[in-house]
């Protein structure tokens, strides 16, 4: 008699377990979809254009810089590992590595051996005279092109203001 009772328990244990699994699944699924849709507001999406002239590693770095500029990527926040990032991009790990090193050179991120990549945890200081000069050097030829294309100073200043606004609001 005892044995038969034991057998019944073993035999129905699986069915019971199955039942628990499905109940959990149903409850979980309800909560999960509700929760995640509610607080999904702060997601940082990165967009890479396939048919752009800008190299992909630069696009990647630029997108991350915009995230930092908007404050979406906070100091000390971790970035995905090279492998995971490359998998999400479906692109070579080398590309991600290049972007990370480019950003590390600018001291916007820190690559810590083994523990991963983080956004610069120390406050990024205001541009030095040298950094300012470098930025100016990069903008200069673009402005020259604008002048050649008959854009007035006001139009170019407007364009700049608009771009700053777009960056802050996250408009692509």
């Amino acid at each position: 008699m005892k044995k038969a009772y034991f057998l019944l328990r073993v035999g129905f244990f699986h069915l019971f377990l199955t039942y628990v699994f499905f109940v959990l699944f149903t409850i979980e699924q309800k909560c999960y979809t509700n929760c995640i849709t509610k607080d999904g507001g702060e997601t940082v999406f990165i967009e890479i254009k396939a048919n752009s002239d800008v190299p992909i590693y630069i696009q990647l770095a630029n997108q991350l810089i915009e995230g930092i500029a908007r404050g979406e990527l906070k100091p000390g926040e971790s970035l995905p590992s090279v492998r995971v990032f490359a998998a999400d991009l479906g692109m070579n790990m080398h590309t991600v590595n290049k972007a990370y090193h480019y950003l590390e050179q600018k001291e916007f991120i820190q690559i810590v051996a083994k523990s991963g990549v983080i956004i610069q945890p120390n406050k990024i200081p205001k541009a030095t005279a040298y950094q300012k000069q470098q930025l100016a050097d990069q903008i200069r030829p673009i402005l020259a092109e604008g002048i050649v294309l008959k854009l007035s100073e006001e139009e170019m200043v407007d364009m700049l203001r608009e771009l700053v606004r777009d960056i802050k609001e996250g408009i692509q």
Partner: protein
Amino acid sequence: MIILLFAFILLFITVLQAFTPKFLKQTEAFGIYVPEQYTLEPTIVRLKKRYSSVVLMIGLIALAGYLFWALTQNPGEEILVLLSVGVQFATLFISIGYYFIMHVRVKKLKKEQGWLTGKNEVRVVDIQFQQKLQLLPRVMFIIPMIVTVGLIIYTYMKYPEMPDMIPTHWGPSGQPDAFSEKTYFSSIATLLMLLVLQGMFLMMSEGMKFSGARINPANKKTSLTQQLAFRKYTSWFALFISVSITLMLGYFHLQTIHPEIGLAWIMFAIPLTFLVVVFVAVAIYAVKVGQSGSRIKVNDSSPGLEDKIAIDEDRYWKGGMFYFNKEDPSIMVEKRFGVGWTLNFAHPVSWIVLIVPLLLIFGITFLL
């Protein structure tokens, strides 16, 4: 009874195959990437419908033929099992063949209508995807393996008491139909196979951590939520199957050591329960979650963007079924046609993951 069992399996396979297009993302039709704005193209809708009805019809005809043959001819068990499996495979192959015809048609349509011309192909990545991912912890998959190891130790403790012939295979009715002489190896062969299977489920769950997510640029939030849910429930599904197999094979094995627990009706009920339970799990996974979570409802108020499309990856999908992408470090990728996962075959690790368990299983059977 066995006939009914096989008929049920055949019906299940047929229905699952026939309605596959319903469980998939809208943006993939027969293994071809379809940009958001073409998903409701009449031709595609028609092809999907035709696929479903043709596969369903072939399956039902095969089922009727099979039932007629089995019930009128009264074949011996061996022939019955052989033919039943044969019919299942034949139905599967026919549906795959029909899939290929559809695949080629959609491919042609895509080229003719120039679905990609003038569109911005964009890849979207969520930086915190890994942090948001809620897979079951690795320990959950290791616990069943520990149970198996415990059973191996227990077997060796009880080794002298075991019968001289060890059952190594069980028929559909739960009665052992193949035996091996008792050796230190054959007495734990079943458990070793179990360990291989459990290891595969563990790897499946681990592999998802390094599998790239493909977020639809036209509908970022919805697609992100669905992807996260899909991965999470895949790990649930894997654990569920792993635990179920452990219970079934573990019980069978214990029965060899303690024959008194092997009541005929229990030995009969266990594989049947297992089968039903697995089918229910598969059905829930396909219908409730869907491929890439496509059947999970998301309350996303942000409007869909029509001018952006995902990067077209058709060139990496041979026949829309096999993924070869050298650049992509992902090992596991979401299937394009079918619910579940496949491997990135351009990666040597994928071949190892595929071949090693097979070799182990064949090796164990061979050594018996």
